[in-house]
């Protein structure tokens, strides 16, 4: 019976501890309280900050639960004598209430054959403890006070069951469990193996101390062959990492009966106790074994485990590092956006195509400003003739509507802004809006292929897709047109020289030709006495005209302002401009996210560091009391 000895060993060890005056314990737990409060505040602040990397509902709930625990621990520790809460946990009918009655020697918890019996938890505590020192959740339970000196610093809680048809009981138990420092896992011959209890134990064992009771011990020692339940349970506990657990074999009912019969305290040992019954051991452990030193050790260990849980959970919430991925995504997006910008440029230029006459007209008018004299007069006249059509078209009110494919009416006065806006609107309606929606999807798919989580990318990218792209397109077209115009009217390099030469030729040659012709005629008339005929007279007009036409042709040939000539330049300018716009808008998305996540990682690391500081503080000062068997490895 190795277990009984182990229990005794613990006991004797504690007796010596309580006999010898222990060294004045440092007020460790009390100093811990503000640290825990500070940590709780930090966790809550972290929870409240908005962040890119989302928490799942489950993660948030878990962390909030931990923050609650931190606060609760801080409050529980911030007292002269910390209280130890021992909670009985087990299935219905295993005898939790009977056990509490046996421990107290009075029927304070209802025990009967109706299952489930206990619906409201019972809190059993020393009368010196003021009710307001109890945790708020415990204050609402049924309270039973006692005057047993051995249990002065301990609160024993009888909880509802965890496996009956009354599911509300299970919820009550789960709400109470965070208050427990030590959980007394009560099993019976039938139920020590049950799944519901075992699952709850596995869920809680990281966080609390566990001791075990196998009640109804009389039903376990039947003399039948096979593994005895206590051996079976010890085996399972070993597999769970409890190599040396505290296990008490009890038959609480017999002790209750004995107490009822004798009315004395402590009750006399029942005569029919089965062999190996250990109720007395359990009572001794509770009353004497758990000294102040051990309580502090259990409390400190509980805090240590809480801090470990905080570290584990927070560590699990650290966002991934997406710097490399964001670079890859940007690389891929840049290519896609360049292609897209090309097509958009093509579409926009194509939309302007029907108005090439107007564009040419606009450029010509601008270009004519630099000619003087005869050339200027000639150009004004010819331009008016050449572009008469575009002027006329605007004066026919319904032309635009009658003819297919010409929704836009050009205003009489060249209003570039309005005109381009119309073009962008048409292009948008027909092509660009749909392309933008498709582009967003393409980018998202590419992002995913480069390993960037879509959940992070989705919303910001869609938001950019919904921006007012028509406005941007309009501006791009206007700017590109203006640029092309500037280039056309103010060329650089050899074109500048050529244009200067041509301009000065155009401004001088016609007048020169006129003068020369007139001079020649006068000379002929005055000196040579030749009376000029009709033909000679007309030469005064014809020769300058021929010169003008020749110069004009030269200008048109060498410095053409024709739509086909500007079209290509315009298109490439537009494509570059659009690709800049697109890149500016989209490429910052992955970078921003990666940056935000890096920032959030830093926050998580800071929180972890803070937790580590507190737990290091705790480890350095932890008392060396023997409580390890209450915890699994």
């Amino acid at each position, binding site marked *: 019976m190795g277990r009984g000895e182990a229990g005794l060993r613990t006991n004797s060890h504690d007796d010596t501890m309580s006999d010898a005056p222990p060294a004045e314990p440092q007020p460790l737990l009390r100093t811990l309280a503000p640290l825990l409060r500070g940590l709780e505040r930090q966790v809550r602040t972290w929870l409240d900050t908005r962040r890119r990397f989302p928490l799942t509902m489950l993660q948030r709930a878990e962390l909030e639960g931990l923050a609650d625990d931190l606060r609760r621990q801080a409050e529980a520790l911030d007292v002269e004598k910390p209280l130890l809460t021992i909670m009985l946990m087990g299935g219905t009918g295993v005898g939790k209430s009977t056990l509490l009655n046996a421990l107290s020697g009075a029927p304070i918890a209802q025990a009967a054959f109706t299952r489930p019996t206990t619906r409201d938890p019972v809190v059993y505590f020393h009368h010196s403890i003021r009710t307001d020192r109890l945790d708020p959740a415990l204050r609402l339970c049924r309270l039973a006070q006692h005057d047993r000196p051995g249990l002065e610093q301990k609160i024993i809680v009888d909880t509802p069951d965890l496996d*009956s048809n009354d599911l509300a009981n299970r919820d009550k138990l789960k709400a109470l469990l965070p208050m427990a420092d030590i959980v007394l896992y009560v099993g*019976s011959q*039938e139920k020590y193996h049950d*799944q519901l209890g075992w699952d709850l134990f596995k869920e809680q064992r990281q966080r609390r101390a566990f001791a075990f009771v196998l009640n109804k011990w009389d*039903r376990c020692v039947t003399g*039948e062959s096979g593994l005895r339940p206590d051996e*079976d349970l010890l085996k399972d506990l070993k597999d769970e990492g409890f190599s040396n657990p505290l296990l008490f074999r009890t038959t609480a009912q017999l002790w209750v009966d004995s107490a009822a019969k004798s009315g004395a305290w402590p009750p006399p040992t029942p005569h029919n106790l089965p062999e190996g019954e250990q109720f007395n051991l359990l009572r001794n452990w509770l009353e004497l074994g758990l000294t102040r030193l051990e309580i502090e050790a259990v409390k400190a260990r509980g805090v240590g485990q809480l801090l470990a849980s905080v570290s584990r959970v927070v560590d699990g919430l650290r966002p991934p590092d997406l710097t490399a991925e964001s670079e890859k995504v940007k690389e891929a997006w840049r290519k896609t956006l360049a292609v897209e910008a090309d097509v958009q440029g093509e579409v926009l230029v194509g939309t302007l195509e029907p108005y090439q006459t107007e564009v040419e007209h606009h450029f010509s008018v601008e270009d004519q400003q630099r000619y003087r004299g005869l050339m200027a007069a000639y150009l004004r006249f010819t331009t008016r003739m050449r572009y008469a059509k575009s002027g006329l078209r605007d004066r026919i009110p319904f032309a635009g509507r009658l003819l297919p494919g010409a929704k836009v009416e050009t205003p009489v006065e060249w209003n570039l802004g309005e005109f381009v806006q119309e073009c962008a609107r048409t292009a948008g309606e027909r092509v660009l809006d749909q392309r933008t929606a498709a582009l967003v*999807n393409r980018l998202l798919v590419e992002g*995913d292929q480069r390993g960037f989580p879509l959940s992070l990318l989705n919303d910001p990218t869609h938001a950019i897709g919904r921006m007012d792209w028509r406005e941007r397109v309009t501006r791009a077209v206007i700017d590109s047109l203006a640029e092309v115009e500037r280039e056309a009217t103010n060329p650089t390099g050899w074109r500048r020289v050529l244009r200067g030469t041509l301009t000065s030729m155009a401004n001088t040659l016609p007048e020169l030709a006129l003068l020369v012709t007139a001079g020649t005629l006068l000379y002929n008339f005055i000196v040579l006495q030749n009376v000029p005929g009709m033909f000679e007279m007309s030469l005064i007009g014809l020769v300058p005209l021929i010169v003008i036409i020749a110069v004009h042709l030269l200008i048109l040939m060498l410095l053409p302002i024709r739509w086909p000539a500007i079209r290509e330049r315009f298109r490439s300018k537009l494509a570059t401009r659009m690709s800049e716009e697109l890149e500016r808008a989209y490429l910052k998305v992955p970078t921003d996210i990666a940056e935000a996540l890096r920032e959030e990682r830093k926050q998580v690391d800071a929180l972890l560091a803070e937790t580590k500081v507190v737990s290091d503080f705790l480890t350095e000062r932890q008392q060396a009391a023997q409580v390890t068997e209450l915890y699994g490895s």
Partner: protein
Amino acid sequence: MEPTEHRSAVGQLADDLRWLEDHCRRQPELATHAGTLRLASALTRNVIGPFLEGQPARPLHIAVVGGAGAGKSTVVNFLAGTVVAEANPQAGYTRHPTAFLPNGPAFQWPTYIGFMGPLNRLSGEKPANADEDVYQVKRIPAGKSGDADPLSEFVIWDCPDMTTWASLVYVNRLLEVAALADVVVYVASDERYNDEVPTQFLHMLVKAGKAVVVVLTKVRESDATALTEHFRREILGRLPKLPDGTSPAVPVIAFPQMPQSERTDPSGAGAKHRVLLLNQILMQVESEAATRVRTVTNAAKFLATAGDGLLDVARRDLAEFEAWKTAVLAGKADFEERYRQEFLSGEQFHRFNRYRDQLMDDLELPGAGRMLGGFIWLLRSPYRWTRDYVAGLIVRPEVFNLSEQTVLTASLTGWLDKLQAESLRRSSTHAVWKQIAIRFDTELGPQARERFNQELRNFELKETDELEQAGKKLVDAVEKRPALLYSLRSGKLALDLVAIGGIVYATWPPGWYLLLVPVAVSATHQATELAVRGAVEGARARVRNQRETLVSGVLTAPLAEWLAEWPATGGSSIEKLQQVLRRVPETIRQMEQRVKAKATEWAAVKPDSAPTATTTP
């Protein structure tokens, strides 16, 4: 109905239910349904199948079920009349079912294929805690006295529990036996009787229409009456209805915590408890045949009524599948809209101008008539010049168009991207989307593109044809019908002549007014041209519409269909799910009818030997 046919139908249904069960187990949120599905498939295999095959009613089966440590093995011993099962203090000791045969003339052990599903019959003996998918059959040793065994027609099954943490592994073995049973003995201790897990199990048994006898064990003698009453009210009062809609009548017996002497001697010291139990069991059994018919009929009814519930597990999958289909169709609509907007609305179909000119040519007079035509053409020259100039003023160049190929390819990319982005977005919500997202880049995307390209070739072939044909038809309508052609020509000629003659006549003698002649001729020509233009434009519009229909019919509709069905192809779970959903209700309905027919058959043949309620000696 041939037995082989029954056999394949039963096998099919059992397999389908089994597959659904596995499907549930793979999805954590559906795992709770797995037990019911297992029960359903076990009922099909163990009860309905043998019955339809004509296996005899004998032996009937009693299954003893209950939570760990409740005392199932003790109850088995009491049923057998002697200690046959190892009662063990270790909770959850029994890990596989054991059948105990009465010690009488050997009867035929069911040999039906699929009987007990995955459980194999152990040939040798093994301890009850052997954790394997097996069952063993033992024979109850002969009793001390030569008394007739009241349960000589019954096989008694000792089952594993359903409450310990290890039971997850072996609860399926329990379900097999529970499905097989004609009578279930539900054992609950004073500790266990209001536990959730066993109670849920009891509910399931009642829903499957099993006759249940409850044994409350370890009851204090003083509490027995009160506890039985309490149990009736709290637990039995909340039982669901039987498959036939009636409330179940469940007898309750209380066993006290017995001393070892009583416990180990069921037919001696413990006989008073045994008699109670046997009585209640035999009350549930009218005759072998009637009992078996009840078991089978209830099983079939359970399948029929729970049928929809069984398939509930598939709802979510199918809802997500529907969502995918909707997404595909939305993509199709986008595709067509893009095609219309980006290409079709600006496309002029220039070929039609050729047909217009051809038509105008056709209306000119042939042969000698050309002279006259030429003359009139000459007369119209001033008008023609004016008109061309004005037209030049007001006609704009056409709106720019992306090429059809570009638009189609871009639209397809857009469609697929949209689907892929959607599936990636939703991949965390359900397995259907996840599967799609995973297989998009490697399978769905490339396959869809390939398919589209094939269809595109098809489409291009058709569209050229169609355009050509529409134009030809227009010209042919005139050229192939000489009567019409000539009447049109002469009509036009008559119109011209009447116009000229009319002017000349009205303004005679000839003077400056003759200038009105070209005007009149121009007017008639313009009228003809407008008529021809109208016809051609109509054809053009028709072609445009046709083209739209063609894109939808040849390109997008087949692709959309393929895409929509894609998750349900290639042996995926959705495909199987669809098959199962189609098959299961139908099979269950057939099965119910066959069971009904067979049951009537059995009722007609009066049972030869029916055990009646007796008391043990």
